[in-house]
């Protein structure tokens, strides 16, 4: 039912099909975090790939920078209702991480872990085939701490809480294990085109 007196402000027609339901365009880059911004020096940074509890490979910052670097420009969608188009990232794809570790996907599910204790679950299929990366650069510059630097996960086709900031590891899990927000009422998968914001959506 229409809201009396509401006209609204529509996005430009040529962009309308890039904006998922319930989202609004922003030119800014809002920050959403559950707590204070952790500040991690690259000298102290490391990234660990695990299968269950077992570490498979660990990279230092220098080793990570020596992996194949990929650029990716994508639209991103935050569950708090903003979308931002054409965001340019660079980093290492999850495919290249697995290749460097010399493994095939161990299970169909992954959990991303972060320095602040945050975690989020993403099916392996949503991370592979060039769909996702561990991003270290935004707009050609090192990723700032507010936006998740030194490194954040980038899974642009899912709501942005899945793109864990301050990421320090990926772990294959036997089951689809809910992460931080998924345990607190957010949707287990988070597809913006199906408006999977909250559990039950």
């Amino acid at each position, binding site marked *: 039912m229409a809201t009396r007196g509401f006209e609204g402000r529509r996005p430009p027609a040529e962009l309308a099909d890039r904006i998922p339901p319930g989202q609004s365009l922003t030119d800014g880059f809002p920050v959403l975090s559950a707590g*204070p911004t952790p500040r991690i020096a690259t000298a102290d940074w490391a990234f660990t790939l695990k299968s269950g509890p077992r570490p498979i490979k660990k990279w230092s910052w220098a080793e990570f920078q020596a992996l194949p670097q990929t650029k990716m420009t994508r639209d991103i969608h935050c569950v708090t209702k903003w979308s931002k188009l054409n965001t340019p990232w660079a980093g290492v794809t999850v495919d290249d991480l697995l290749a460097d570790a010399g493994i095939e996907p161990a299970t169909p599910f992954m959990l991303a872990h972060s320095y602040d204790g945050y975690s989020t679950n993403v099916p392996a299929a949503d991370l592979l085939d060039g769909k996702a990366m561990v991003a270290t650069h935004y707009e050609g510059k090192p990723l700032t701490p507010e936006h998740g630097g030194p490194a954040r996960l980038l899974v642009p086709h899912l709501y942005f809480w899945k793109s864990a900031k301050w990421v320090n590891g990926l772990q294959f899990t036997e089951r689809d294990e809910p992460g931080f927000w998924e345990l607190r009422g957010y949707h287990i998968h988070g597809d913006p085109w199906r408006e999977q914001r*909250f559990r039950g959506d």
Partner: protein
Amino acid sequence: MRVDAPEEAAHVAWQTATIEALTPLSARVKSIVLRPERWRPFQAGQHLDIRLTAPDGYAAQRSYSVASAPETEGVYELAVERLEDGEVSPYLLDIAEPGDAVDIRGPFGGHFVWDAADGGPLLLVGGGSGVAPLMSILRHRVAARSAVPACLVHAARLWDDVLFRGELLALDEDDAAFRLLAALSRDTPRRPQDTGRRIDAALLADAITGLGARPRLTFVCGANPFVESVTTLLVGLGLDPASIRTERFGG
């Protein structure tokens, strides 16, 4: 760990709410009291989603924190601040009238929440309409007769921008375990405990000292640069980052 109640399908369904009252809280912020068809219990600190629909079916959604206490059944009070280039806030502040209907769902949120059983001391830091969820927490603390020490540091430009000022001043008078500290960036403080400057480390240290012990939980809500600056100061004062919960808005 607390998780959302299992009543998920009902919780996520949109429903109609009637605007019962619109009251200015400051030059830029109005209190909006909504009466939904089916009021759902919630936790202090949670937010509602609001949806406005144009005649051609175009719809816009936004999230607003609930400022009323979970004990105030039947209604949700919001504190809506005007964003000059906004799409939804100008409608709610300038066009909406009591009796109008909007779509809502929720309340939602499982992290920026406080229950009296969580205990204290409790440090609350809000900028502008970021005070809304902190107000819900304080009202819940009163309604639940919780005696945990609590301090609200309210950042505002002017004394007249201090939201819910009458209620907060009365609580400050009546409740020995509660302190209001106003940090006024463009105004002269009216009370000795308030300051005529932005929130800084000295003010936050004063707030923490007044609690008698390190806060068990700290809630910070406001525009992102505000939250970033306050949380950096709090971590610098030695608070455990895991004890600090944030809610940020704006780009």
